[in-house]
Structure formats: structure tokens, C-alpha cells
């Protein structure tokens, strides 16, 4: 039995220690916003925050994340939309949207490290997040817009 805190709520889960966090969230807890895309950290659709850092939840073993604070897209804005989410809506980034929760969490992490990223910074950090629909340019534009919003706060 492991204890897991997701978006501030404590859960008890009974799984093997090596089960990836992704599948604990999805199938044990019913939190389906982190998506299964590849299972090998190639796509980024499963990205969540663990103690504030963007992590591929398909690679985080249950035993290693027990007791840590997990944040999924539902809680990144602390009860309202995060500025990155606002920018995503304003620039209508998603098509199918399957990768976008992971993209947004990765972008939040990027802006935390580099508040005013260049295109080069964005390319470097965001290239691990695959989008099969091809929304990359809108993602770039939305990140710049979010940076401007957050800088203005």
C-alpha cells in the first residue's frame, strides 16, 4: 500500500512498486488528464508535476513517488486558469488535444526556468513533447504570449 498526494488530496493505492505513476493515476485513481502515448518517454503526453518539476509519469515508479506532491493539469492554476492555459485558449493551440495537457505542463516548467524564452529555448525544451497534429507553431506563439502575461504580473 502506497500513499500518494495528487492535487492536494491523499490517496492510498495498492499496486506493485514498479507500476508507473501514469497508470496509477489513470486506472487506479481515475485521473485521466495525463495521457498514455508511448510508454517510453518519447512523447510527453503523460507529463505531470512532481514536487513542482515536470516529469514523464510513464517513467516515474510508484515506489519512487510515494509521499511526493503530484500535480496534474487540473491544479496547475490553483483554482483558475494558469496564464499558459489562457494563452493556449487565446491562440487556440489544440487540434485533437491529446498531447496538450503534457505540452502545457512542460511549457509551465520552461517558463519557470526561463521567463523570457527565445524560439531557440522553446525548441530545445519543447522538442520532447510530440504533437502528431502539428500545432508546434501555435505552441511557440502561445508560450511567448504566456511569457508576456506572466512578466506583466
Amino acid at each position, binding site marked *: 500500500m502506497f500513499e500518494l498526494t495528487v492535487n492536494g488530496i491523499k490517496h492510498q493505492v495498492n*499496486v*506493485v512498486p514498479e*507500476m*508507473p505513476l*501514469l*497508470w496509477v493515476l*489513470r*486506472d*487506479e485513481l*481515475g485521473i*485521466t*488528464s495525463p*495521457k*498514455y*502515448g*508511448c*510508454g*517510453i518517454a*518519447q*512523447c510527453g*503526453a503523460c507529463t505531470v508535476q512532481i514536487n513542482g518539476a515536470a516529469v514523464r509519469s510513464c517513467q516515474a515508479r510508484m515506489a519512487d513517488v510515494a509521499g511526493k506532491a503530484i500535480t*496534474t*493539469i*487540473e491544479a496547475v492554476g490553483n483554482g483558475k*486558469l494558469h496564464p499558459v*492555459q489562457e494563452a*493556449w*485558449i487565446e491562440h*487556440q*493551440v*489544440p*487540434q*485533437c*488535444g*491529446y*498531447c*496538450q*495537457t503534457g505540452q*502545457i505542463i512542460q511549457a509551465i516548467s520552461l517558463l519557470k526556468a526561463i521567463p523570457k524564452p527565445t524560439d531557440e529555448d*522553446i*525548441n*530545445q525544451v*519543447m*522538442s*520532447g*513533447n*510530440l*504533437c*502528431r*497534429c*502539428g*500545432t*508546434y*507553431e*501555435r*505552441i*511557440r506563439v502561445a508560450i511567448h504570449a504566456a511569457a508576456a502575461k506572466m512578466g506583466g504580473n
Partner: protein
Amino acid sequence: MGAMPDLSRRSFVFGSVAVAGGVAFGQYAQAQPAAASAAAMNPLTADLGPNAVAFNPWVEISPDKITLIAQHADKGQGVGSIQPLMIAEELDLEPGQFEIRFAGPSPAYFNTGFAHELAPFMAPDQSPEAEKARAAALEWLRKAGLQMTGGSSTIPDTYEKLRMAGAVARETLKAAATKRSGIPVADLRTEAGHVILPNGTKIPYVALSADAAKITPVSVAKLRDPSQWRILGKPMERLDIRSKVTGEMKFGIDRRMDGIVYAAVRLNPNKGQPIKSYEASKAQAMPGVQKILKLSNGIAVIATNSWYAMQAAERVDCVWEPSKYPAEQADHWKTVASSFTPQFLAKEWRNDGNIDAGLKEGTLLEAEYRAPYVGHQPLEPLNGIGIVTDKGMEIWVGHQTPQSVQQIAAAAIGMKPEQVTFHNEWMGGSFGHRLEFENVRVLAEIANQMRGTPVKLIFSREEDFLQDIPRQIAMGRYRGSVKDGKIIAADVQVAANAPFKELLARMGSPSKDPDGQLGVGIWNVYYDIPNYRATSFEVQGLSPCTTWRAVGASANGFFTESFIDELIHAAGLDPLKARIEMCRIPIYRKLLETVGEMADWKGPLGKGKGRGVAFVEAFGTAVAEIVEVTMTDAGIKIDKVWVAADVGKVVDPVNFENLVQGGVVWGLGHAMNCELTYAKGAVQQTNYNHHEAMRMHQCPAIEVRGLENDYTVRGIGEPPVPPAAPALANAIFAATGKRIREMPFNKFIDFV
């Protein structure tokens, strides 16, 4: 624009006969129960609650809510949003005032948008013969009752009928209000979900549903002029954007149900072949595992969590029947190369002038091009939920062909199609993947062995790759000649396996006609080349193949527009100017001029920079693209792409831009980086690290302009794909002098 006697005469000569017999859809009509007219056959009436009304198959109003039905499935292309908004435009509803539901299977939802593709006339042809053929094709489609999302057809199919559905509902609600209030219809108006009386009293539509149900739907003569539109044609927020940004959107893979069990599969990677035997004792003992089931072509593990099921499935030792197609990739290519013979001739699509004489004049050029198998691999893997009972099957799966889901699932478990209840889901991409049935068939087999228990099947990414029925493998053999600065002949031959015909066969409707998709990109070429012949050959005995975003044109467009570029260079001409001068369709010439203006095209750039242009019409939509690249120490860098596309009417401008950008990324990314190859009968690429397409760091800025000169409304999901690869190859040639004639390009040149 007027008709083009020249083109219509030519196409008519070899296209006049094959219309209503089903050029592309084969025997589908015979396989389907004949559909009554959509009005007489409204699938919504069967399940209507008390005091509810369904004016037509798309609008349902009950005392507590308004539901708009989306007949085309949403794979990310935005039609779950624009379909209800087209209804809302005429019905005077605002976003937030209605629910959206995907349609169940019904011939009432037959796709009128395929009529153009079925009629063997070129897209810009408005001659009476062409229009007659399209009308005949439409009638045939009505009889066939085929409900399918695909072929960039959603907007062409629904642009008129959904606005009409909204208008009819509006006028009928007004008639109901007249009956109740005694006030003449002419004095009533509608706004934001209400009928408004002259004194300002507002009656909510939902309050009129019971009365409206007693009235025969009012017929409407004329739709509102686009100048009156409130929503359409203007930048609007897609209705699904917010839920996709907040994480609330539930895709098929996210659906949960009480008492559910989780299934993973291992299926024979030799596609289409059964399993011989298996040994599962190791897997059976693994955590969470409940059962291991034998399937016709593999095994399934039932577990308490998808991950347990996937882990255990990997540990089952399976012995497979070997493939019927060549086990090794080199033999696939050999088979293609040996198919340019009369035995495999599918169709001579065009034969203008005298090709033999034309090729003898001037300087002869010959080139061979290749397009490999590629995967669809939408990010949401194949999945589904199924429950089988003695009465039938209920299935929840994101799919583009609801009726075929019923047929395939029923056939797999010895039931009748009408015993299968289908629920569509929001899809995390498709690109053609969700026109196929592997997950549907397998889910039916599994749920049938677990009767009464809901089963959720998820393909692991690896399994999804291994079972992905790829894009056709294709080879083009091109000959042409130039003389005195002019292209005087082009003889275009393509050999490939037949994607659409194969899909139809799997749908239970085999066709003997040539695959029309292998003619796209070689037949509908609009340059004034006096001697022009286009021929397709259909390769037999290879891997199954299917429709992949842009289908035939994704390969043929690359071949033809690369070869045209080679001829233009051989003739000493400017690639853009020569195309404009040779283009015989005025609105397409305008399109090429537009993309040239956008890019400020002025000929060669020098200093390791190069630009390439390409122009392809597919699914009726003409798209011209210019790609600019720079040769750097780290390889080719794509700096910028300019796109002009003519769709007659841009209905959803922001989404239009997004789809065009995505199509360019799709076309470029796969042309640069992707192929699927076979070894020992199985695909060798099993995850995205082997088949990356494009990532952020390779993605250029993409500038888009939509034109509205075409005489009819066109789709945009696929048409931006075909010009991307040849425009890039032509740009690389301009920058480096290196001509790349085979995809993926990264086998021949490095990219940054």
C-alpha cells in the same frame, strides 16, 4: 469561372461511363440496406423522450435541453465544433446553449461530400457533363447510405445541409410559437435560443418542444446570406478548446465504467495471419492478471489495470503463422518495381497529344521516385470499450465509419450488425488509422469471451505500430522532354498497392474498379503540357495498406511536382513563374501568384539558401506551398513555409489556419524522417523514436492564406499535405543542387 471545354472534353472521353456503378465505392450500395430519404428516416425519433422533438437527424429539442448532432466524427480536425455551429448559425443559438452528441449509425447521415470525388471529372470542371455525373454520384451515395468521415469532406457535405437543418428547426419553432400566441410568423424573430414576440416576450426554444413536435417541419427556401452571419466565417473559439486545455476533455481512452476490466493484446505482426500456439504460464502468474484469452490472430490479457495487462501480454510466448506478403522490405520494393507491366495496369488516366512523338523531341529526362510505407500513429493509441451479452454488443470506440464498426464487430462474434450498439468518442488523432478495424474486431472477440463484463482494450504503442496498416508503398517512373525552353511531354507512371480499394475490401465491399486514389496527383495536373500521359499500376501481394492523410496524393504529389520541377530546371525556367505560365486554370494561377507574393519570390537566393514551390489539387482543394531552406553545418534547416489554399469559403478561419499548419507539419515531417520497413514479416519501427515525424525544433514558421475563388466549398484536412514534400525537395535542390527522389529524405541528407 466558366467551364473549361478543353479539360472537360479530355476527362469526359475516358471518364464518362464509370459514374453510378461506383468508381471508388465498388459494391457498397449492394451491401447496405437501401436508405430512405433522410427526412423520412430520422434516427433520432426512435429514442425521443416525452414532449421532445427532432426536426431532422441533426436537431433535437426536449423540455430541458437542446442537442445538436455531429454526424462527422472528430479526430482533432474540429468538426465536433463547426458542425453544431453551422446549425447554430441558422437556429440562432449561442455557444453554451446546446449539447453536442456524435451521431449513431444511420443511412440518414450518408456523406454527400464524396460526390465530387466519385465523379470522374476534374475539380474545376463545371461543364454540364461534370455536374450531371456529380448528381448521379450523389444519388448513388444516397442509396448507399454510407456514413463516413474522411476525404476532407465534412464541410463540403454539411455546409448546406446543417445550416438548412438549423433553419428548418428555427422556422418550425416559430410556427409553434405562432400557434401558441396567435401572432403571425412574420412578426416573430429568434435570438439566442428564444422566439421573441413583438412585445418583447421571450419564449425559450425548449418550452416550445412539445408544440413543435406536433407540427410538420416547415420547409425553408433560402439560407441566410454569408454577409448576415454572426458566427461562421469569423474568428471563433472552437467549442472543444477549453476542455482540451483544462484536461476535462474525455477521449475514448479516458472513458470509465463500473466493473470494468482492462485488456491488452499481442497480435500476429505478420498482418492478417493467425496465431499457431502460445505459452502463457509466466504471464498468468504476473500481478493483476485475471485471464489470458486466445484470439483468432493472437492473445489478450485481462487484468485489473492496463499496465498489468500490457506487461503480461509481452511475456506470453506466441508462435505466429508466417506472413503471406514478402517477409523482407527489399522484396516489397522488388515487387513494386516489377509491377509496371500490362498485367498490373489499373488505368490510363490521361493520354493527351502524342506521348511517344513528344518524348522523341527535345531533351529527354527520366527519373524514378519512391514513397515508403508510413504509419498513422495518432497519439491516442487504438482502444475501445465493449460489453457483449446474449442480446448483442455495446461498443464505445472513436471511429470514422459507424456502420462498418457494427458489421465488423458483429461478424467477429456471429451476431447481426443491428445487434451492435455503437457510441462514438472524441478521438486523439486518426490520420486514417481510425478508418480501420483491428481494435474493433479484437475487442469484440475479447468481450465475447467475457460476456456481461465491460472490457476496456488499449493497444500498447508497440502493438499499435505493429498492427498499423500503413500508407501504400509507391514508385513513380517519369519521363519527359523539354525543347526551346518549354516542357513538351511528360509520361507519368505510378505503381503502388491500392489503399482505398483495400479499405473497401475490409469493409466488406470489394471493388473491381481502379483505385481512384492512385490517379490523384498524376491525373489532375493542370499544366499546359501538350503531350501528357498518366497511368497507374496496382501492385499485388504486398503488406495491406490503407488511407493515410491525403492518401494517393501524399506519394503521387511528391513524384509529379518533383518531376515538373526537374523539367522546369532542364528548360532553364523559374520554378514559380513557369508553373504560373503553364497553369491553365485561372483560379489556380491566382493561387500560385498569391503564394509567390506572400513569399516575395524573386528567383534564386544564393548563399546556401534555396526555395522550392509545389502545387497539388487533392480532394478538390488546390494548395500551393513555398518552402525556404538554408544549408547549415548541422544540415538543412527549414526556415519558413508559405501556403495558399483555395477552399471557396473559409467557414472557420482560425481552425483553417491550424489545420493547414498541421498538414504542412505532417507532410514535411514524414517526408523527412519516417518510413516503416518489414523484416521477418513484421514492421521494424515500434515506437516514436523510430518514426518521429516532426518535432518542435524542426518546425518552421508557417504562414497561411485562405482564398475563396473556387466555385464551391472545399475541405482542408488533407490537401495541405501533398505539396509539402515536393516543395521541400525542390528547395533542397535549389539550395544544394542535390535532387532527392525518395522519402524519407534523411536517408540522403541531414536535417538540423
